[in-house]
């Protein structure tokens, strides 16, 4: 009898997440820790934590972490990485953090080709503060600040982060993955590993956008939230690898 699954060592012993039931953050954190374990980076890693539900991350990780101002995780990560080029520096951010408040800093990390890894969890709203409209909110989606649904004439169109990051020359890897089902979680695992690998090989900026369920603010059961990702979110945000300089993932 052999143990084929165990909780990654990068997580603190007996960690209990404080996320809502069915939240995708739990899976995303576990996949990230698995990738760090696979490359044996725990002693050498520095985590840049964004604001929002992602800010809980340093309670769970057995890794050095910095809490960054809203949206500025990639900017702070740039400084940390340039001073400590041998360290593995990664940022863990939400879509509101990465693509609204920190849009400039985030895009310039790709434009400058910083050796960073970013995991961006996209759940189409500001989850921690009560589900307000974020930059990635779908057209017609009801949130607390768009009670009649997001109207493109009034609120504009959703931001497509992974495609946008992929267009810069400094970006080494950009992909969009989902956590709605077992096959997609396995693909997400591979993409996160790749984003870490491009930093270790000093190829440029590694980015992964993760479509993640937010059952509490979507007012759905966890299973309905996964269905919502498949039915509605994937139409607006198609999954795939948009850039990979190593050419290994398609």
């Amino acid at each position, binding site marked *: *009898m*052999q*143990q*084929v*699954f*165990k*909780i990654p060592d990068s*997580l603190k012993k007996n*960690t*209990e*997440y404080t*996320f*809502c*039931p*069915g*939240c*995708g*953050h*739990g*899976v995303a954190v*576990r996949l990230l820790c698995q990738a760090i374990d696979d490359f044996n980076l725990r002693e050498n890693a520095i985590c840049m934590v964004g604001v929002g539900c992602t800010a809980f991350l340093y309670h769970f990780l057995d890794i050095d972490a910095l809490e960054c101002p809203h949206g500025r995780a990639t900017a702070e990560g740039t400084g940390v990485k340039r001073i400590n080029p041998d360290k593995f520096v990664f940022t863990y951010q939400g879509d509101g953090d990465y693509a609204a408040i920190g849009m400039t800093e985030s895009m310039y990390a790709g434009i400058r080709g910083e050796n960073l890894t970013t995991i961006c969890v996209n759940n189409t709203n500001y989850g921690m503060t009560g589900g307000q409209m974020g930059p990635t909110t779908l057209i017609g989606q009801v949130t607390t600040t768009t009670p009649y649904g997001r109207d493109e004439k009034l609120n504009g169109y959703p931001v497509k982060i992974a495609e946008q990051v992929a267009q810069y020359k400094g970006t080494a890897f950009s992909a969009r993955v989902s956590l709605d*089902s*077992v096959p997609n*979680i*396995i693909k997400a695992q591979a993409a996160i590993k790749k984003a870490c690998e491009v930093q270790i090989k000093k190829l440029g900026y590694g980015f992964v956008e993760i479509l993640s369920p937010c*059952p509490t603010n979507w007012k759905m059961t*966890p*299973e309905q939230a*996964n269905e919502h990702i498949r039915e509605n979110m994937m139409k607006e945000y198609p999954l795939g690898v948009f850039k990979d300089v190593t050419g290994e993932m398609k």
Partner: protein
Amino acid sequence: MAYITIDEKKCKSCYLCINACPKKTIKVGEKTGKTGEKVAEFVDSGQCIGCKSCALVCPDLAITGVYR
């Protein structure tokens, strides 16, 4: 035969593992968890194939090990 271990203290009763299991070896249990709902429970009927599907979808690290 393969089996899994569930930490009832961590389970938040989202039941994603029940839907993910291809052999239906996980069911809604008798005990009440920390959210006030019944926690997931493993039925050791010899059907488990150790595919890790439940452990991959579990968002709360409640499935602490899969053995095969």
